[in-house]
């Protein structure tokens, strides 16, 4: 059992970082938990109870590594319907039943359930949920509490509420609206401002801190009552003792009504979809690229939901935004989930009275922002790029969810997708005749490179993707895989976007998944994930250069480089850099590269985190290959990456006799001696006397960039110049311990 010992040692070693990460997550979980519960018209504390129960149980029993469990935003809509229709006690009963169903799904290994939903239908459903949250909370954010019939009515009432602010006679309401708008501004601009100090505390916590500070300022400094109307303050936060006293009794008397079970099924459906999608997304963020045991997680979530329901809490699901904050703060195992629960208990225990100083509009602004992120118009634009038919699926699901209900919405989304597939192919037989056939062949070549080869026949869509997925899941991600789709008459968007996620995972774990055989297929758009039908014919690409692009073309000519403006997703060279371990490369464009492919300057868009915690960064980078083995190191002036890199076993390295260098740069690496040998006096002098760049190495490549924005043409020139000289410099470093790699 030596493996176990190592595990415990590693666990203890990583504990401080996980506790810290759990702390940061709890800073978001607290306001979100309160807000989500209030949005569902449940007592605010029920959201925190769900987070605590989820954090404890899922961290102990779960099968994923860096996920955070708690109340989910997707559930707001269904819980709201359940509570208004059944009442609170019966809803707790529904929550408990849905927890049981969720655990059963886990025991039946139904984790693959989420694969049966077309990507665009899921997007449509999430957008609808976003609109439901946004529509309802927008009014409270502006100090206008409404009671309307359906979720659409709330949306339609938004213009009225906006104009209504200017007619408030009550000063308290005006202040309430101001606090809401201010909080929304914090949420919107937080990710736009790149400031280290600001980012130490997550945006939702800033809102909480500023609100409480504001309240104290009035009370202690101005010695006046808080100007925000008392009706719009957070109320009813019980102390820990009161929570235990006031545990509600779930009311199971509705168990014979169809409405009750409708709610149970809707809650289970959303809870499982939200959890499964989140786990899948978080697995891609995990720097260690571990594979989550989805079914075990479902069981744990089910159990946690049952527990939470009995204690008066909401459903427990895996949540993407909090999980991605966890990853970004160095969470590396389930202890951070536990820590997040622990800190929530501490907060409630110590500060429950302080929380009543938070104005509701400020809290609801967080939810409005969450809703907006789910339903943002950029989703629709993305859909348009993929294809008009995806927009149709998206809109159908969205409208049906808004006007009828969640289950109807997702079912009509699936039906619409299938109908479109039939119409696109003008062939229903293709789908019906081949539906039951095992259409996927996978084998590991018994000769040559021993590659895995997968071939898919007939068609490959959301209907039969699970077969392909089953095979893909059996391949270790560090292997080479060739996936041949040439015998497929039709490949849909859901499959292609899922395969892209697989490609990311493979390339991050040093494997490679290559998709071939789509050359004879035609798509309506240029998007890589557009539906593909087998048809001859190619489309012309028209290019319309911007000023910067024209200049880049000139620069390319000057330096004898090739220039390509179009974007590429071929980023496997970059994935191996530590910098991108927790980041997702969206695309690479405006590439200037030489013919040998060992020197390239490019614009890149990458993102960090997901959902409300998502930040997208555009910057310009330089990649160059080296024919020498370079020890892995990171050179940076700021040292703000220290935390991230320290987590991956990097140590701070001091180069002797260069105190100035040591003062100005942070040099990190895992093989100290090799890095010292590599940094010769000449190289140190080179870095000292040249403009500052972030330089990072990996085996036989270097990544150089300046700051987190796209470089101007002048900066591109100096970047190329710097790179050229650095390349020359490294070539001349005596190859003491390094062997030349062919």
């Amino acid at each position, binding site marked *: 059992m030596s493996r176990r010992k190592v595990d415990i040692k590693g666990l203890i070693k990583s504990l401080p970082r996980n506790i810290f990460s759990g702390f940061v997550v709890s800073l978001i979980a607290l306001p979100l938990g309160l807000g989500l519960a209030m949005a569902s018209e449940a007592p605010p504390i029920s959201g925190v109870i769900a987070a605590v129960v989820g954090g404890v149980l899922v961290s102990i029993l779960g*099968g994923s590594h860096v996920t955070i469990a708690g109340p989910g935003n997707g559930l707001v809509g269904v819980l709201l319907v359940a509570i208004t229709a059944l009442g609170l006690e019966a809803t707790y009963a529904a929550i408990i039943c849905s927890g049981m169903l969720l655990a059963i799904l886990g025991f039946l*290994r139904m984790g693959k359930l989420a694969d049966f939903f077309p990507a665009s239908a899921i997007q449509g459903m999430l957008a609808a949920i976003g609109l439901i949250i946004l529509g309802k909370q927008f009014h409270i954010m502006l100090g206008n509490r409404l009671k309307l019939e359906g979720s659409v009515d709330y949306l339609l009432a938004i213009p009225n509420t906006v104009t209504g602010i200017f007619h408030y006679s009550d000063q308290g309401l005006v202040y309430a609206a101001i606090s809401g708008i201010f909080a929304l501004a914090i949420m919107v601009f937080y990710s736009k401002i790149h400031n280290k100090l600001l980012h130490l505390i997550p945006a939702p916590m800033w809102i909480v801190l500023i609100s409480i500070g504001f309240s104290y300022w009035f009370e202690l400094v101005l010695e006046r009552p808080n100007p925000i109307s008392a009706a719009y303050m957070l109320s009813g936060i019980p102390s820990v003792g009161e929570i235990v006293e006031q545990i509600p009794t779930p009311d199971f008397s509705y168990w014979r009504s169809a409405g009750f079970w409708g709610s149970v099924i809707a809650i289970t459906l959303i809870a499982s979809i939200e959890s499964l999608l989140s786990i899948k997304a978080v697995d891609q963020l995990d720097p260690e690229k*571990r*594979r*989550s*045991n*989805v*079914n*075990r997680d479902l069981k744990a979530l089910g159990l946690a939901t049952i527990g939470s329901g009995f204690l008066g809490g909401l459903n427990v699901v895996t949540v993407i935004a909090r999980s991605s904050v966890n990853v970004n703060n160095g969470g590396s195992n389930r202890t951070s989930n536990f820590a997040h629960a622990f800190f929530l208990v501490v907060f409630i225990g110590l500060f429950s009275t302080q929380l009543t100083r938070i104005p509701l509009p400020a809290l609801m602004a967080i939810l409005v922002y969450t809703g907006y992120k789910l339903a943002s118009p950029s989703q629709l634009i993305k859909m348009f790029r993929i294809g008009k038919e995806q927009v149709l699926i998206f809109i159908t699901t969205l409208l049906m969810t808004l006007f009828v209900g969640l289950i109807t919405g997702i079912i009509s989304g699936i039906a619409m997708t299938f109908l479109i597939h039939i119409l696109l192919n003008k062939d229903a037989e293709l789908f019906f005749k081949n539906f039951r*056939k*095992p259409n*996927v*062949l*996978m*084998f*590991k*070549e*018994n*000769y040559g490179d021993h590659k895995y080869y997968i*071939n898919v*026949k007939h068609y490959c869509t959301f209907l039969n993707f699970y077969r392909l997925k089953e095979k893909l*899941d*059996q391949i*270790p991600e560090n292997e080479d895989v060739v996936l*041949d789709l040439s*015998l497929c008459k039709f490949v849909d968007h859901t499959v292609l976007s899922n395969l892209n996620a697989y490609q990311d995972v493979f390339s991050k774990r040093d494997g490679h998944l290559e998709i071939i055989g789509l050359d004879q297929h035609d798509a309506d758009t240029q998007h890589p994930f557009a539906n593909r039908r087998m048809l001859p014919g190619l489309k012309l690409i028209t290019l319309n250069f911007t000023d910067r692009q024209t200049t880049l073309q000139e620069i390319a000519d000057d330096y004898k480089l090739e220039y390509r403006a179009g974007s590429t997703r071929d980023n496997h060279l970059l994935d191996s850099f530590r910098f991108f371990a927790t980041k997702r490369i969206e695309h690479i464009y405006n590439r200037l590269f030489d013919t040998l492919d060992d020197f390239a300057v490019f614009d890149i868009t990458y993102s960090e985190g997901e959902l409300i915690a998502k930040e997208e960064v555009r910057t310009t980078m330089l990649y160059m290959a080296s024919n020498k083995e370079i020890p892995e190191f990171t050179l940076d002036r700021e040292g703000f990456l220290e935390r991230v890199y320290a987590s991956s076993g990097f140590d701070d390295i001091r180069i002797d006799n260069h105190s100035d260098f040591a003062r100005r740069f942070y040099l990190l690496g895992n093989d100290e001696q090799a890095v010292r040998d590599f940094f010769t006096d000449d190289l140190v002098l080179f870095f000292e006397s040249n403009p500052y760049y972030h330089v990072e190495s990996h085996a036989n490549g270097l990544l150089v960039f300046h700051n987190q924005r796209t470089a101007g043409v002048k900066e591109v020139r100096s970047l190329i110049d710097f790179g050229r000289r650095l390349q020359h410099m490294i070539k001349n470093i005596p190859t003491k311990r390094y062997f030349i790699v062919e």
Partner: protein
Amino acid sequence: MAYKHYQVLGIGVAFSPNLTANLYEAARLSKMLKAELVLVHVGPESEEKKQQIDQIIHAQGEPPVTYRLVFKVGKPVGAIVEAVKENGIDLLLLGALKEERFVKYYLGSIARKITKAASCSVLLMINPSLERVACQHVVVNGFEDEHTADTIHAAFHVANSLGSKQLTIVEEIASEEVSIRVEDDRSLRRLNLLKEKIKRKQELRVQKIIENLPDEVKQHTVIKTQPIFGKRGYSIGHYAQIVRADLLVMNAPNTYRFSERFFPHDVEYILNELPTDVLLVR
């Protein structure tokens, strides 16, 4: 039953547009296998038919093959099965009857009926042609079964007779044999270890079969093995299709049990899709 070389090659003759191509293939095959050729026609005997067939056989090429022409009356399948018994046919050739969309469907359904009733091996040709198309690559099943050794022997014999350069033995391993389900990194690792173990075991078994074959049938052919984890009877057909095999050799289904009317038999997938020419060895 130890493997015997094919002695008598039979073919059902119908006066369809493909008659010439079918007869050409049969004549060539009988020469290459050095087997006697028996043509079975279901229908009344007539001089005209005899002459037409004789002409075609003679036009095929020198030296003209000797053959027997048998006339049978009755329902096609039943009559052919009877003729197989009476004439000691041990390899029955079935060519495509018509050139149309459902050709594979017809061929499959007739093959299904005949394999159910007849005791000989059956060769299904999906694309009989006038010119000889060289048979380059033969794929044969190698899964664990008492008949597999014979089937592999037959495949080697046919491959050798047809001058095929390559023969691949595909060991299909049913997914059910791999009991581990992939859920996380650990189960994945365990699964792949188990797969390797099963693979080695299967490989050894197949190597033993190859060793026991006489040298003269295997010396001109490149032998490869390919283990595949997947649905038995399906994977090999898909494999034969993507490696563009010219002939797929399979164990013929033993006898149809009642339950198999509802659940597809191993060769059912092949008969449904007919990826290439198929030889069902009995």
